[in-house]
């Protein structure tokens, strides 16, 4: 999960470092890992999410730094002019393999994580494949405990697969500002928890789903998308804009065949940078719901709703508004435009109230 940081585009480099034999420029404040991203993008990580403060937990991004006794974590080491960095020596690769073997050893063997669980859910599997780790070394206790009591409809907490990278805890605090989840106990007994280890519904969680999307193992899963695990066919994604409010979050709609199966925030969405809210993330069932209206409805003389044409429906609405205005006066009509509607619709609504009724009784729900 990596974005190019476009904030550096208009800046001048402050110096160069030697990265695996090549002199490469860097910008003020960049870490070795960030520099490397532009040139080779091949340093592995598990605890890194470029939206979050670098944590330095997984140690997979270690590199050799000339003058330093031990390898350093490239994600937390700020580049300084003249640094000589080696990112793929035999020793470094050996440590990465051992670290991967260790982290694989704390989880159930041979588990297949469906990509529908979350955007980053394949990261551990990909890393294990890269280092040809089959899970046959470092046998021992498993660290996580799946929270089966938490039956909320959105977020699966399958901590058997947790590797304690704390990306979920950090995204909740740093991006969402909810501070709903935290770290309980110490060492190998560490668990991801909420206040008093309650369910998410009882906690400060707002079900924005960001923890799910940043989880590198699928320990957190998107329960709504996972309903489609057994549907055949590949997952296709289509870039769109969330229709719910005026922010305009970029989303990727996930489909299997002609079925919408889930929604993912776009990490490169200019308005949201990977964030969504509970509605944008999970409230999409209406799209293909059998109860969804696909034609206007008007009431017949018996008071029952029946299908109608747009002309019939609009005539009926116009007659109703006209009757209210004629009977009670123009100030008995007040319009509130939806924040979900585009500018053009908002303009039309105010035009309709101002010129149609001659009143200023108009507002927009985004103001509330």
């Amino acid at each position, binding site marked *: 999960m990596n974005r190019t940081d476009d904030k550096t585009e208009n800046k001048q480099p402050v110096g160069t470092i030697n990265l695996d034999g090549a002199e490469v420029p860097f910008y003020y404040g960049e870490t070795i890992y960030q520099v490397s991203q532009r040139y080779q993008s091949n340093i592995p990580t598990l605890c890194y999410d470029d939206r979050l403060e670098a944590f330095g937990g997984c140690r997979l991004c270690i590199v050799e730094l000339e003058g330093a006794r031990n390898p350093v974590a490239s994600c937390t080491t700020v580049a300084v002019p003249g640094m000589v960095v080696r990112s793929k020596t035999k020793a470094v690769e050996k440590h990465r393999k*051992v*670290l991967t073997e*260790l982290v694989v050893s704390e989880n159930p063997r041979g588990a297949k994580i469906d990509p529908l669980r979350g955007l980053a859910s394949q990261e551990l599997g990909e890393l294990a494949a890269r280092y040809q780790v089959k899970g046959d070394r470092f046998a021992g206790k498993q660290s996580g405990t799946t929270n089966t009591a938490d039956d909320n409809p959105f977020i699966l907490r399958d901590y058997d697969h947790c590797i304690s990278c704390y990306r979920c805890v950090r995204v909740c605090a740093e991006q969402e500002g909810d501070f709903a989840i935290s770290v309980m106990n110490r060492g190998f007994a560490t668990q991801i928890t909420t206040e008093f280890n309650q369910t998410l519904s009882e906690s400060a969680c707002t079900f924005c789903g960001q923890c799910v999307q940043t989880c590198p193992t699928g320990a957190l899963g998107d329960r709504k998308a996972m309903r489609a695990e057994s549907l055949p066919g590949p997952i296709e994604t289509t870039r769109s804009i969330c229709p719910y409010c005026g922010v305009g979050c970029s989303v990727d709609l996930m489909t299997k065949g002609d079925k919408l199966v889930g929604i993912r925030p776009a990490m490169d969405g200019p308005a949201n940078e990977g964030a969504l809210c509970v509605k944008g993330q999970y409230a999409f069932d209406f799209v293909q719901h059998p109860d969804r209206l696909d034609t206007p409805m008007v009431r017949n003389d018996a008071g029952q709703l029946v299908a109608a044409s747009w002309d019939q429906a609009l005539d009926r609405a116009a007659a109703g508004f006209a009757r209210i205005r004629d009977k009670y006066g123009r100030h008995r009509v007040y319009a509130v435009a939806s924040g979900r509607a585009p500018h053009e619709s908002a303009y039309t609504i105010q035009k309709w109230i101002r010129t149609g009724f001659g009143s200023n009784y108009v507002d927009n729900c985004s103001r509330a």
Partner: protein
Amino acid sequence: MEYTAAVPEPTKRAVSELSDADILRRWRDEPAPLLPVLHAFHDRDGYLSEQALRAISAGLRIPLADLFGTVTFYHHFSRSPGGRDQPRVCDGPICQLHGTAQLTAALSDHQPTAMPCAGRCDQPIPVLRGDQVLVGTTAASLSAQPSPLPPPNPGGIDECVFAHIRDQDRAQLEGYGGYTSLTQAIESMSPEQLLEVIDSSGLAGRGGAGFPTGRKWRAVADAPGMPKTIVCNADEGEPGCFKDRVLMDHDPHALIEGMAIAALATGAERGFIYLRYEYPDTEKILTRAIAEAVEANLLGNNILRRGMRFNLHVRRGAGAYICGEETSLLNSLEGKHPFPRNRPPYPVTHGYENLPTVVNNVETLCAVPPIIEYGAEWYQALGKGKFAGTKIISLSGDVQKPGNYEVPLGLPLATLLNDWAGGPQPGRSIQAVTMAGLSGGFIAGDDLDRCTLDEPCLRSMHSFLGAGGVMVLDDSRDMMEVSRQAMSFFAHESCGKCFPCRIGTQRLTERLALEAGPRDFQAWRAEVEDIGETMKATSACGLGIAAPLITDSLIRYFSDVAKNRFDK
């Protein structure tokens, strides 16, 4: 207070009438309020209830999930009623040799739990009950005892921090004799002169890292940002180390004076002593000594009427070895989850509240007043040969006279063990000693005779002096079992931030217990060595880097012992 019956009575907790609001009002505007607030609720209620945490969360504006998670990090905070007063029985390496298991069984009616080494290895076994430490190897013999003084000087050895510790009434200001070094420093020395004296004395960090004290102070003096802070690391959590306790219990004013001189040299205005939970008596001694110093105008806002401001606070930890790591300690003081921080930046520029901060060990700070009094050259000359100064060694285990010894750096280990401490028990021989508590692994075999107590020699033996804990293991001890206990301590105390330490300490413990891993010795050894190498190279702090020295030295000196546990 003594336990007179075989089955001890629960200690009486002073009934507190303080309301939640009283406690929060008392501490809310103090620096570093979270730990004292948690302790106040813990002491009042006997545990940390859900209601208490909700009040603290609201009162100190800390997210509830964060607060809950942080509380669970510390093993002495109890979350169930009555938990605070249940006995904690030390299961440190030395106490286990003296019968932790039997004592725990004898106390079984009182729901005892094990606690890691509580720093009483010279007088086992400590049992902590709320605010009270009792010592004894049987339930009937448990009683409150003052910290043992260091054994008498073996004769003709110049001491620095122990020179006056055995004097009558040394812990009282009157007996201490006033802060002559601080007075001298304020009246006739510039901060620059102070830094020069400390620099040229060769004093280096006595908590284990050995960083030159003068350079650290100078970095803080030069760093921009106010107010600056002096933090005394008194979280003596290393198993087999009990030197800081004896210094604070018997010479608290030396520490306070040392901190005030550090403040004068660096321009710091506030100070903390971060004291481990297991030393409740020491907290009372320090609090009393600070009050005496404030009364005598040796601490406060206008010290000795010279306009110097330095206010000193004691903060009590709650059970977490990692809080002896300086950046974890700072996070703990700030009320954050006590993971170590990423470095750089270092505390000298970004310490307490991200401002310049000196973090020094108790022994380092206690050495400051005599250095100011007698001069840099005097201190330098205390060491043997090229080594500057002295080091306290906490000696315990299978030796006739355990205790704290202040040795000249460079002293042969054999001199300490045999000439000073009387050697092994009759009929026994010394099989191995631990170094740096447990962090330096073992020294054994011929190295026991070759070893001198200084970093270059110990580094050449793949170990280090560290905080100076030396535990002696005679030929009756099972080195595989000693190693398992040691690694299980590191696993228990690993904070969980970095992967190599969190998983590695667990996997090594399982392998030393032969609970998991290959059943073939060569394959077992390959796994143990791979884990160890990666831990040493990639761990984020000293805990994960040091822990594999246990397995390294086990394999180096006792490969046969390990091999015998396998069929092939």
